[in-house]
């Protein structure tokens, strides 16, 4: 025996056990090496500033459009139609953000960004645009307004960050408003998909049945239901992630307020 003794100081196993990270795809033996910072160059920064300013402006247009339409009509119903075009344009334009991550001028995960943008685009085109009957639903206003406020804050946050002059108010808003806007948006989205279900089932929208040459079938109705179900595990994860980010970001600033 080449060892003379083991002194076990703590046998409190329960407190030491660490749970594997949720959704991790790396195997356990991967290295934890510091990631190389891929920041944008001067040209990329200029482009990103322009992009974010344009997006901020676009969503402001949508916000103004909603308010004006409300004032003109005098009711909350059917406001979707007054902002339909800019909504489609600017929400679809967000697809560029996937490209930004892929190229490396934005240090975010392509998969995560792709997932977020595609889910928005899906709701805009494959649900709201495709199923006319839901366009007059109030749930549409619910998610559109949540998106509008969120995006205005988010894009202005990015703009100011790129210019290295981020007002605390914007940072605070970005990491606080989501507490209400996120559940609001999710509720609107789920209600809208739910409202679309009977029409999708009746018309067989985007569905393929057997028999066919390529031996494939797709039931859009079931797909929408599965989409709704997927919110159950996904939404809490994202929400609590944002809450943890909030603690980190806002706690830091409390220590040394610079702006």
């Amino acid at each position, binding site marked *: 025996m080449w*060892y003379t003794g083991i002194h076990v100081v703590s046998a409190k196993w329960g407190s030491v056990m660490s749970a594997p990270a949720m959704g991790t795809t790396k195997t356990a033996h991967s290295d934890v090496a510091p990631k190389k910072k891929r920041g944008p160059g001067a040209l990329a920064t200029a482009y990103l500033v322009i992009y974010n300013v344009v997006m901020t402006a676009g969503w402001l247009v949508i916000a103004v459009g909603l308010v004006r339409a409300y004032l003109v009509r005098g009711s909350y119903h059917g406001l979707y139609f007054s902002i339909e075009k800019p909504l489609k344009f600017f929400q679809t334009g967000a697809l560029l953000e996937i490209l930004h991550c892929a190229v490396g001028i934005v240090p975010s995960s392509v998969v995560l960004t792709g997932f977020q943008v595609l889910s928005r685009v899906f709701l805009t085109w494959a649900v709201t645009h495709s199923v006319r009957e839901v366009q007059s639903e109030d749930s549409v206003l619910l998610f559109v307004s949540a998106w509008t406020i969120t995006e205005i804050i988010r894009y202005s946050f990015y703009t100011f960050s790129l210019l290295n002059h981020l007002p605390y108010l914007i940072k605070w808003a970005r990491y606080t408003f989501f507490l209400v806007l996120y559940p609001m948006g999710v509720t609107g989205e789920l209600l809208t998909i739910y409202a679309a279900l009977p029409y999708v089932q009746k018309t067989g929208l985007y569905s393929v049945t057997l028999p066919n040459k390529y031996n494939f079938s797709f039931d859009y109705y079931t797909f929408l239901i599965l989409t709704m179900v997927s919110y159950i595990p996904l939404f809490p994860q994202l929400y609590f992630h944002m809450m943890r980010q909030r603690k980190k970001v806002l706690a830091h600033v409390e220590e040394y307020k610079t702006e």
Partner: protein
Amino acid sequence: MSRTTFFERNIGRITVEVLDGRTRQQLCFLDKVEPHATIGEIKSLFHKSYQQLYPARQDLKLDPKGKSLRDDDVLQNLPVGTTATIYFKDLGPQVGWTMVFLAEYLGPLFIYLLFYFRAPYIYSHQDVFTSSPYSVVTLACACHTCHYIKRLIEAIFVHRFSHGTMPLRTIVRNCVYYWAFSAWLAFYINHPLYTPPSYGDMQVNYALAIFVLCELGNFSIHVALNNLKAEGGPKCRRFPHPTKNPFTWLFFFVSCPNYTYEVGAWASFSVMTQCLPVALFTFLAFIQMTIWAKGKHKTYSREFKDYPQLRMPIIPLLL
């Protein structure tokens, strides 16, 4: 014993303390450890104090944010003084590679057969235990089944695995993926409303021929890789090379011909069944295997200065 004897006996010995990587709490204290002890031996010792934490589950590091230590690292060759502080992390339950492959392959094997024989509750009531009038459906079942039997045989008898284990979470995720996908494609191929290939027997037969060739090719490569490990030994590392077997001549063109053949087998299976879900599975498998092939290719190129320039990772001359 006298003072000198004590000193002589313990000269050069190292004190090892194992701390939890997150909490920095001391978990284990080993004094008078021989300097030529390996990390593997440390792990065995640690296991003695913590029964559930078998060595495969332990991740030991000198720096909590740094690289993991290997089992064959020797204590005295590491940058430690007379006291070594090692940080521990629990990797969670681990499963040996053979078990992993068994779980991943037995699932699709049996699931497909459930669909082939049209077990109850899959298709409509009147179709239970009926069979398809098309020969291609039976052929597809034979091909799919043989593919997975071959994989199981390889997993048990051919492959030699370098890393001991895989985390439980990963296996569950992989199994869900393989099992669900095989259920999905089996559903269509064995469906009562299945439509046989547009170009009939010619399409099926050509596809079948390519399928068989790719399976043989894939098997040849696995055997060749296995023999490479055997002939090289732990000290002499060589990269894979073509042998007398014509199937291995693909090594002239690609680093990972086993993946090339695998993609070929599934592509031909897609053509043979003319089934879109199979094509989708092939496509996803192709993406994943390309990622692996590129990684392997990079590793080979970096490790061996004389690595052939002509070789591409997975597709000859292209990718």
